[in-house]
């Protein structure tokens, strides 16, 4: 593995290796404090992000390395019209590894062809966001202890939510998985994701518009935001928006060991009243994001 552009480039064995490493980092952080001493991570963020950029930077700092970069295209030469290839050729002269977010799909792949140092895709438009999926996988492993025999509910915007697509693709490689797809009609999972990741593999799935009715069977509930701008008319939005907001009353029939996840940022789709429920894993998920990125940086640097 030289770069990480798409989660599907990783075999399940490679994912297991990264997760084991992340768990070891969590258990023995002191052993990793100087692993990346004198190494530099460049975070090239051509569009803003809070969580992803800070988690990459925190990951490198916790490994004893240093960080540099920019957090918006306006403060880079891209504003002068420099190509991605030229930007990363330059950065590759100074940094040992690059994490890149770009609004255009495929930009990190272009970067990986020219940088001369490992490139990590930190999100390219609505396309891929592999480190979010690794974060989700580490969270599932830590919360559940295993990847197989799980009923996974994904709820909200399944049409445009790239994190949901990647999670389904990644989890469909394990045994005994069942997916429950919960969304308004307008925001159903695209057929190509459903065909390739679920139907072709004969994975059982259920498609519903009603979150409450399927709640009792879920082991994992992965929430995403239903955005107003995704609807064709305001009426539908108003009619549907509350059905996809997770509130304590909707959890009354849920399993005691349900894991509630969310890629964040959340707006109102999970009530803050749930934050203290032990089943709410989304802030632990954020924390896991740093550890899996530490494991990934080490792997790509061959350390």
């Amino acid at each position, binding site marked *: 593995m030289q770069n990480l552009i798409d989660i599907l480039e990783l075999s399940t064995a490679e994912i297991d290796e990264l997760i084991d490493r992340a768990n070891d980092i969590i258990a023995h952080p002191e052993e990793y404090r100087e692993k990346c001493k004198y190494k530099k991570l460049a975070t090239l963020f051509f569009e803003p992000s809070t969580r992803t950029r800070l988690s990459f930077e925190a990951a490198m700092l916790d490994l004893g390395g240093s960080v540099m970069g920019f957090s918006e295209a306006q403060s880079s030469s891209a504003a002068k019209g420099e*190509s*991605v*290839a030229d930007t990363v050729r330059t950065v590759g002269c100074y940094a040992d590894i690059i994490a890149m977010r*770009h*609004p*255009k*799909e*495929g*930009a990190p*792949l*272009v970067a990986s062809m020219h940088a001369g140092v490992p490139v990590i895709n930190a999100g*390219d*438009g*609505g*396309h891929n966001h592999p480190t979010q999926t690794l974060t989700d996988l580490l969270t599932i492993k830590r919360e559940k202890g295993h990847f197989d025999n799980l009923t996974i509910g994904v709820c909200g915007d399944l049409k445009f939510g790239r994190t949901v697509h990647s999670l389904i693709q990644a989890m469909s490689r394990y045994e005994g998985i069942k997916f429950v797809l919960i969304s308004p009609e307008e925001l159903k999972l695209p057929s*190509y994701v459903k065909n390739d990741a679920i139907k072709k593999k004969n994975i059982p799935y259920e498609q519903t518009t009603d979150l409450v009715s399927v709640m009792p069977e879920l082991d994992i509930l992965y929430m995403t935001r239903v955005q107003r701008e995704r609807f064709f008319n305001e009426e539908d939005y108003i009619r549907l928006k509350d059905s996809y907001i997770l509130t304590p009353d909707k959890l009354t029939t849920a399993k005691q060991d349900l894991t509630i996840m969310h890629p964040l940022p959340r707006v109102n789709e999970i009530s803050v009243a749930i934050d203290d429920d032990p089943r709410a894993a989304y802030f632990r998920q954020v924390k896991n994001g740093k550890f899996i990125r530490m494991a990934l940086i080490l792997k790509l640097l061959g350390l």
Partner: protein
Amino acid sequence: MNIDGITNGLVIDHIEAGKGMELYNALHLGDLECSVALIKNVVSHKMGKKDIIKVDEVIDVDLNVLGFIDPNITVNTIKNNEIVSKAHIELPQKVTNIIKCKNPRCITSVEQELPHVFKLTDPEKRIYRCVYCETKYEENK
């Protein structure tokens, strides 16, 4: 209708009727100095109707272009009035700069100098996807 036989050259045969012109353009045959014949709607036992292109010179043709447009095409090379080779055409695994990605969110939409590369992701349905954004190529979109 009679078109002269060729002594040295290429016969691109079994082109799906109506696709001859597309192939002519894709192979840049208009740039050649030699005689080139594009024959449309030739009666064929197998195909009903087909197009044929004859080139009066042995030239290198990009078999990937041919394979992408139609893998059933045959290319016979003729030297001294005899067929000396029949090219075996396959659906190419990858095509570069033959088609363009039309996704406005793709990096190729803003970086003009990037090659447009598509890879074959479903040979049965002949689906090609952009290597950068994975958008499916659709002819008429």
